């Protein structure tokens, strides 16, 4: 505020110089240069400071504990190196949990995305009561996951559940929801899909509405049908959004906990670990057996797995959608070189005629 007030007196001096581009705000002192450079970082710093306290510290502390035989109550531990990691990796349970996690993840995210794209495409059409339909698909998302899990677990009861009773009434054999691993994965994936399909639908719908309508008009003029338009315009334009949705679904899917935990009355993943997921096992080791050294090692292993999958995601999606969003066939390097060349050209043009400088400066 003060610097704006001082401006008239201070601003008088540069008047003599060639008319440089001027910026509103702080004065053109060293301080203002720092301000320009530092402010953005200052503005985002609360998040990172908070994250350092509530996120980074626990992560580091978990790493410390994972190298120890930790006693939670006495708050002390004995350093034992990589023994906890070795223990986790040597347990057949770990590999079963990993298998289950990936199986549930695939069973939930793949059909979920396909259905979400389909519903979004339908909602993108000219239908009556648009807002009503759009809000309706989000209703399952508003329900608490535990409530969803309770209702579905009841429906998937082995002997008296609604699903099996219906199947039997239709003359079909009952499905052993709680003893067959694959069946249990489908049941749990159903809960996840029920909850998240609507959410992803809305995100994809928003992306679809951002696609310029001219593309469709042009395609219609060219004689492309609805289906051709969907595959040649809608889907390619959705790629950046799809990447976001896939990455969040991956992170969420690998950490799936509520649904398998609520799937039966014990919450320990089934008698034969049929639906034991990595996070569920982590919880059982930590809060069931109070073995936080092992739980911490498991948490770090899971973290590394997610990082690895994230990296694979990045590589795959980069190669798939490098040019999307901007619709620019040049690589970033070419773009930069061209931009630099253009700038130099402009500067060269602007140098004799000071009037133009004002526009090119920024």
């Amino acid at each position: 505020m003060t610097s704006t007030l001082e401006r008239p007196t201070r601003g008088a001096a540069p008047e003599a110089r060639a008319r440089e581009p001027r910026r509103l705000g702080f004065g053109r002192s060293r301080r203002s240069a720092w301000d320009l450079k530092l402010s953005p970082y200052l503005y985002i710093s609360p998040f990172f400071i908070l994250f350092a306290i509530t996120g980074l510290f626990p992560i580091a502390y978990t790493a410390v504990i994972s190298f120890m035989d930790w006693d939670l109550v006495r708050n002390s531990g004995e350093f034992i190196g990589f023994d906890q990691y070795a223990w986790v990796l040597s347990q057949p349970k770990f590999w079963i949990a990993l298998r289950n996690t990936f199986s549930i993840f695939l069973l939930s995210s793949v059909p979920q995305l396909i259905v979400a794209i389909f519903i979004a495409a339908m909602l993108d059409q000219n239908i009556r009561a648009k807002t009503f339909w759009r809000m309706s698909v989000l209703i399952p998302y508003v329900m608490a996951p535990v409530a969803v899990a309770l209702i579905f677990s009841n429906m998937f009861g082995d002997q008296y559940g609604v699903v099996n009773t219906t199947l039997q009434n239709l003359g079909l054999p009952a499905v052993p929801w709680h003893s067959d691993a694959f069946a249990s994965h489908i049941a749990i994936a159903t809960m996840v899909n029920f909850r998240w399909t609507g959410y992803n639908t809305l995100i994809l719908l928003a992306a679809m509405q951002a696609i310029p309508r001219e593309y469709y008009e042009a395609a219609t003029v060219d004689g492309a049908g609805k289906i051709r338009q969907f595959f040649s315009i809608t889907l390619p334009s959705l790629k950046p959004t799809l990447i976001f949705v896939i990455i969040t679904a991956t992170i969420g899917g690998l950490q799936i906990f509520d649904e398998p935990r609520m799937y039966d009355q014990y919450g320990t993943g089934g008698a034969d670990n049929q639906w034991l997921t990595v996070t569920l096992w982590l919880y059982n080791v930590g809060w069931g057996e109070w073995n936080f050294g092992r739980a911490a090692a498991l948490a770090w292993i899971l973290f590394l797995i997610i990082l690895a999958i994230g990296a694979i995601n990045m590589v795959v999606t980069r190669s798939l959608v490098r040019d999307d969003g901007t619709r620019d066939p040049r690589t970033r390097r070419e773009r930069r070189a061209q931009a630099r060349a253009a700038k130099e050209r402009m500067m060269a043009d602007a140098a004799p005629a000071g009037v133009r400088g004002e526009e090119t400066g920024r």
Partner: protein
Amino acid sequence: MNTHALRRTALVAAVASTSALVLAGCSGAGGSASGGSDGEVTLTIATFNDFGYTDALLQEYMDAHPNVKIVHNKAATSNEARENYFQKLGKTGLADIEAIEVDWLPEVMEYADLLAPVPDDLKSRWLDYKVEAATSSDGKLVGYGTDIGPEGVCYRSDLFAAAGLPTDRAEVAKMLEGDWSTYFAAGDKYVAATGKAFFDSAGGTYQGAINQVEAAYENPDDGSITATSNPDVKKIYDQVLAASATQSAHLGQWSDDWFAGLSNGAFATMLCPGWMLGVIEGNAPEVTGWDIANVFPGGAGNWGGSYLTVPGNGKNVEAAQELADWLTDPETQVKAFENAGTFPSQTDALKADALTGSVNAYFNDAPVGEMLSERAQAVKVSPFKGQFYFQINDAMQKALTRVEDGTQSAADSWKQWATEVDALS
């Protein structure tokens, strides 16, 4: 912004901050009352489910001790209480009196040194096995016993009648009197007559039998794991699974199907601790056939129960011990029983008229007080539960479930269990 507005804002801010200060001062004063030098004490009790400690009951103590104020915090489930307990034990944040459940008592016993001891003169108040379970290896009792779960056999008299079995309580007791093979023989008869299941699950039945073994899984002397080589465990495992092939409804306890089975007649009998009566009544309110017999296969058994503990680093340990003493006094415990049906673990309370005279209308007016009191006194064995009891037993329950749901054969399932147990230590 003009100066007027500025001034007004400043005033509002000043008033707000002053009142905040005043409020802070108030709460500060309230907080300092606890443990003050003038004898004013605020005691906190943390329990779960329903211990029968109503406000009226606690008021009695406050009336007798005007300097004491009691704050009662209830957790919804014992699991919640367990997490809270171990996260704060030895640190700060626990209540002056913390309730614990028998299920996690073995874990608590590892930290017996962090708890204030129960005075020696109180030890004779409880049944022997109740005291024994909460006594550390160096002879320190750390838990004030509250309730227990003496077990009888619950049965459906209507289903028994249809199968041609006796329906009268005394006759049923006579028929089932004996060891587990007697119970399973009766089951065979029932299955032959009706083709339906006799008991609910292998897991529940196994639990009743394993609780009669003195040292099932671990060696009491050195804590080493003996589960896989203990012939008693193998015998019970084989016996229960042999029977469960035809007699079990294969409904894991506490599953949705099991709750449905309580009312739809999927099974005719169930091992029944005192607190189970409420569970059955609550989930099968329309069934009129449930009854309970004063008998238990293999003698007697206890399932569940709780203690009160006093964390040793609390602010008011002595006052808390005094209150815990009063809360687990036989007289108080009988009142708690009247409030919530928590069956007393105190020998004197088992003889109280209010207890022995209690009947349960839902169970066809069965004299449950008298019956369960007798069942409680018949319990002779205090099963040793060490550090790994919980995990070994949990793995065993899963092994039984695997056989019941047809995932594995009994032999394979036993093998997998043995591997899991070996990985524990």
